[in-house]
């Protein structure tokens, strides 16, 4: 009995080991997919199953979200743990390729890839290429389309616009009649600009035919395009309605002053409109984005791409998997899978392969499940040939970042102009927009546009030299340092790096300490004590001392973490100097001033509020437990969960609870923009932080108050002191230690605020984290995080971290000094 049980167990164990080892042998491909929901990973899993049946190759699918996919991919490449292949956004392949993270399809696969490459629409490929290498291939494309309520148009005698001036005319007529125009997807996005500037031949930063790098910012036509975009984005429908569902609800509704008769949205939305209200199907139509009056037709291109990682050990199998995904069979499966999803998850993305659109597959599009998106399929066919893209230029992320901030500021400016004018007439924003369209305020629209034009010209003028410098530096730096590293990755990987030296140093120090203790008799007697204190000491040595020294060295180098650490190049004080230049987009002064502002408001405000509540709670109340529960409960909640709640409370439309309440109370006429406005973003973070931090402060003060002997108060009462005098002369001095503690801790905590800003800034909602409009919430830690783990500029991040360290150190020392001198005064 017993041996048989043992044998059976052994068998099971062996079996498990066997399964484990066969799995290892099969070398399943790791495939990461950034996507919007669970459905995408489900889709890829089903495809993987079919692929497995055909080829015997196993593919494991891991979903990633848009918010941090870049950081995840970069981290995996930096750690040498990348998947075999992945889905990324359009911009990533050449960025990762240029630091040796992903495979060059053309170079590494040669003729194998030629025929595969020919299948794509040619305009889609240049954006993945860099110096003749091709680092990615498109997965699926999205573009902006014009959604139109035909019935409203008919009523007003309008026809679907096909040029920009017709578009402007339609908007004006609609608004005059009390209908909205809404610009949804790509509003305010830097990369969405090229649909507005490319018709004039200006894509922004690009390489000219003769190999020169050009930046078009100062071209009048370029600025005209941008201004038109700003007009469409910011001078019409009021900001945000929250969910796309609501926008669609308004698109389908038919009340004046509320419904949207024309909107710009991504092509994937069509399916959900049809699903939400099939009975309205005849009332709306969908047309491609209008062309510029004088200029070529250009459509914005968004979407995703496939990449294969250099670290993959199974590149040939991985390419087979990607080829399978681009087969007509898999493409059609994806189309069907996407369109058949529930409600909003039902999407239509444009396949970038010619094959799918060939006449012989026309029957496929006639299937009943595609009926809801028949309009978008038709419109997509019209725009496919107009997609075009440009080869990547080093320095583009920096330039895009600068321009993105310009657009943020312009959005704030446009909104302020509009609100200012509306208030001048005593109107709400929408009433004013309507009035403008009706011609009630002649010349004012021109005046607003003129003000914006001037401001825009000024912005570009100011930022242009900076942008050029960034590009020049990025290119020189790349040619000098990285190009060589990427060619010789192996050599650098084998070299010893600063971390190795520091580690060996630390190890030597540790061994020396142990020998010291072991050899000196006076110390050996205390061995037990040393063992007792060893853990915190060891941790401090390894995880504080070693990192501090490493990052001190790194702060003087240029280092991209996907490359081996030994490739870090000495640049001296560059990072420190650049950090202190006002016109650098990542300058630390900006962040320091934000941080001080944040700390300077949250700490005193928190203390005053907490004092008041603590004083009230210190009364002999009935139901103490209840009150404490109410007031202390935020203590144990995580910043992330709480921030998520506040993000919704701060919603910028009249549907957000705070806005709804303020509107109802008559405090405001227009919904506040809260998180979408540069000037109010940080206040919103402060509101959240004060709310969240209040519990702890109240608790400490209350604990302090309760230690003050009651006799003191009694004695004061006998002396005829009022409550204020008692509070001022007894309570406050009584909790001095707590006050000091709360101030110091509040400041140190405030200097390091991160989660709240990350979440309120959009968290995972956008591609790549943003810290509020125009980086309004980029305090110190968000700056370090952004530099280190989004931009992966480890040297610069280290320099900023050191600045923060010195700042906090200085503050603590000053405070302790003040404290000590106070104490010696006998206070």
């Amino acid at each position, binding site marked *: 009995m017993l041996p048989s049980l043992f044998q059976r167990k052994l068998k099971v164990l062996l079996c498990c080991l066997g399964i484990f080892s066969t799995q290892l042998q099969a070398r399943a491909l790791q495939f990461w997919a950034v996507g919007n929901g669970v459905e995408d990973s489900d889709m890829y899993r089903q495809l993987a199953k079919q692929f497995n049946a055909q080829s015997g190759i196993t593919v494991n699918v891991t979903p990633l979200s848009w*918010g941090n996919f870049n950081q995840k991919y970069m981290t995996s490449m930096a750690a040498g743990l990348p998947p075999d292949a992945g889905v990324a956004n359009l911009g990533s392949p050449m960025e990762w390729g240029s630091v040796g993270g992903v495979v060059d399809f053309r170079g590494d696969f040669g003729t194998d890839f030629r025929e595969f490459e020919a299948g794509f629409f040619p305009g889609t490929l240049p954006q993945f290429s860099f110096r003749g290498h091709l680092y990615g291939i498109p997965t699926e494309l999205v573009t902006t389309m014009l959604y139109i309520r035909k019935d409203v148009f008919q009523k007003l005698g309008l026809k679907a616009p096909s040029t920009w001036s017709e578009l402007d005319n339609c908007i004006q007529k609609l608004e005059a009649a009390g209908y909205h125009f809404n610009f949804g997807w790509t509003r305010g996005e830097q990369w969405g600009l090229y649909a507005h500037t490319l018709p004039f031949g200006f894509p922004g930063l690009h390489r000219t035919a003769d190999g020169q790098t050009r930046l078009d910012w100062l071209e009048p036509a370029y600025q005209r395009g941008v201004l038109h975009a700003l007009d469409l984005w910011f001078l019409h429908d009021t900001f945000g309605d929250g969910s796309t569902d609501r926008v669609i609800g308004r698109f389908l509704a038919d009340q004046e002053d509320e419904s949207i008769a024309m909107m710009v949205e991504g092509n994937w939305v069509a399916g959900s409109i049809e699903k939400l209200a099939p009975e309205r199907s005849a009332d709306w139509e969908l047309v491609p984005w209008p062309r510029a009056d004088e200029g070529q037709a250009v459509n914005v291109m968004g979407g995703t791409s496939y990449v294969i990682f250099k670290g993959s050990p199974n590149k040939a199998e991985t390419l087979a998997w990607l080829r399978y995904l681009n087969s007509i069979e898999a493409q059609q499966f994806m189309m069907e899978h996407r369109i058949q999803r529930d409600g909003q998850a039902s999407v239509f993305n444009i396949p970038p392969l010619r094959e799918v659109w060939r006449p012989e597959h026309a029957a496929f599009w006639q299937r009943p499940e595609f009926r809801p998106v028949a309009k978008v399929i038709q419109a997509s066919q019209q725009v496919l040939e107009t997609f075009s893209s440009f080869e990547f230029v080093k320095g583009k992320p920096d330039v895009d970042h600068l321009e993105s901030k310009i657009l943020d500021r312009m959005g704030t400016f446009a909104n302020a102009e509009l609100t200012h004018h509306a208030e001048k007439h005593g109107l709400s924003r929408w009433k004013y927009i309507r009035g403008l369209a009706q011609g009630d305020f002649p010349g004012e629209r021109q005046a607003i546009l003129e003000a914006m034009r001037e401001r825009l010209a000024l912005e570009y003028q100011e930022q242009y030299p900076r942008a050029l410098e960034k590009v020049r530096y990025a290119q020189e730096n790349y040619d000098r340092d990285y190009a060589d590293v990427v060619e010789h990755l192996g050599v650098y990987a084998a070299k010893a790096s600063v971390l190795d030296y520091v580690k060996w140093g630390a190890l030597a120090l540790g061994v020396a300490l142990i020998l010291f203790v072991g050899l000196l008799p006076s110390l050996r007697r205390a061995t037990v004590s040393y063992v007792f204190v060893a853990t915190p000491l060891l941790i401090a040595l390894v995880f504080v001392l070693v*990192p501090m020294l490493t990052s001190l060295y790194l702060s003087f180098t240029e280092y991209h*973490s996907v490359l081996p650490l030994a490739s870090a190049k000495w640049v001296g004080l560059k990072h420190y100097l650049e950090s202190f230049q006002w016109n650098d987009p990542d300058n630390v002064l900006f962040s320091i001033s934000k941080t001080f502002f944040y700390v300077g408001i949250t700490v005193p405000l928190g203390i005053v509020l907490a004092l008041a509540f603590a004083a*009230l709670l210190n009364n002999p*109340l009935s139901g103490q437990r209840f009150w404490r529960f109410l007031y202390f409960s935020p203590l144990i909640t995580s910043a992330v969960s709480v921030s998520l*709640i506040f993000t919704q409370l701060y919603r910028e439309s009249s549907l957000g609870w705070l806005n709804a309440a303020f509107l109802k109370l008559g405090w405001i006429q227009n919904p506040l923009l809260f998180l979408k406005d540069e000037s109010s973003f940080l206040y919103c973070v402060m509101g959240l932080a004060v709310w969240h931090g209040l519990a702890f402060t109240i608790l400490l003060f209350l604990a302090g108050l309760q230690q003050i002997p*009651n006799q003191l108060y009694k004695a004061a009462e006998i002396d005829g002191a009022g409550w204020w005098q008692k509070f001022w002369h007894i309570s406050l001095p009584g909790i001095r230690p707590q006050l000091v503690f*709360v101030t110091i801790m509040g400041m140190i905590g405030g200097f390091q605020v991160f989660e709240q800003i990350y979440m309120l800034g959009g968290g995972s909602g956008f591609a790549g984290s943003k810290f509020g409009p125009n980086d309004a919430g980029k305090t110190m830690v968000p700056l370090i995080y952004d530099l280190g783990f989004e931009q992966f500029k480890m040297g610069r991040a280290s320099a900023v971290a050191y600045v923060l360290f010195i700042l906090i150190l200085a503050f603590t020392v000053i405070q302790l000094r003040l404290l000590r001198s106070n104490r010696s005064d006998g206070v």
Partner: protein
Amino acid sequence: MSTLSEPQSDSYAKLQRDAEREGKSLFKLSQRRLRFWKMSWVYLVLGGAALLLALPFYYMLVTAFKSTEELASFSVSLWIQHPSLEPLRQLLEGTIYLRSIGNSLLISGAITVGNLLFCPLAGYAFSKHRFPGRDKIFFILLSTMMIPGAVLMVPNFLLARDFGWINTYFPLIIPSFGSVFFVFLSRQFISKIPNDLIQAARVDGCSEVRLFFQIVLPCCRPLLASIGILSFLGAWNSFIGPMIYLLDESMYTTPLVISMLQGRFSNLENVQMAGSLLSILPALVLFFVFQKQIVNSFASSGLKE
């Protein structure tokens, strides 16, 4: 000046009890009623403020149970018209929420156990042992508290990569062992344990390790509660570390899963709130049950010297 200065008593709770007892014995019924009226404005202010402060929780509760159709309607409703469990279902099916709780428990548990063991141990040596360099070592440790975690983010990432720790729990757990703050707290607390007690045990031939576990630790219950609760909550709520180090979704911690909701359910506010609710509610229930211990441990964290 510290609640922790007397290890055997829990002065905060004691004072609270005293205050309650005083309230009961000193005032007769009529006086209490009079007092109640005098106090009515305090109740009013506190009650009003509490309503405001609880608003986010209320919003979360209401929204988490709204159906998606109700959300899409163009109105603000303070109550749920059509209660629905659909958001919860979507959350549980669309994320690895339950698994993430297990992950968070594992990490937080490991950190807590480590701190409960190593911090009092070091604190004991620092307060009751004499050995060369003791005060210097303690000062060096204390000064590392000055270095903000954010400064170490970048180099610690490179270190973890060097150790092959990316996408494991080690970089989240190991550096948190022996937190200097808790060592400091332990030293303060243990220094108040009478030396005679320890000396007597030593005379009886008790080894240092046994002495620590059988004599010192049993005297430290409030300290252990504080270290346990604070380090657990700290680890449970931590976000940036797991975000940087974890790659596989199956390894995500709860805050990480919650932070992903904005992306994954971008237009579904109800699902997002269901996520917040699921992460906050258990904590609130635990807080309700262990209110005293939790409040005391937070209070003790704020009283230094």
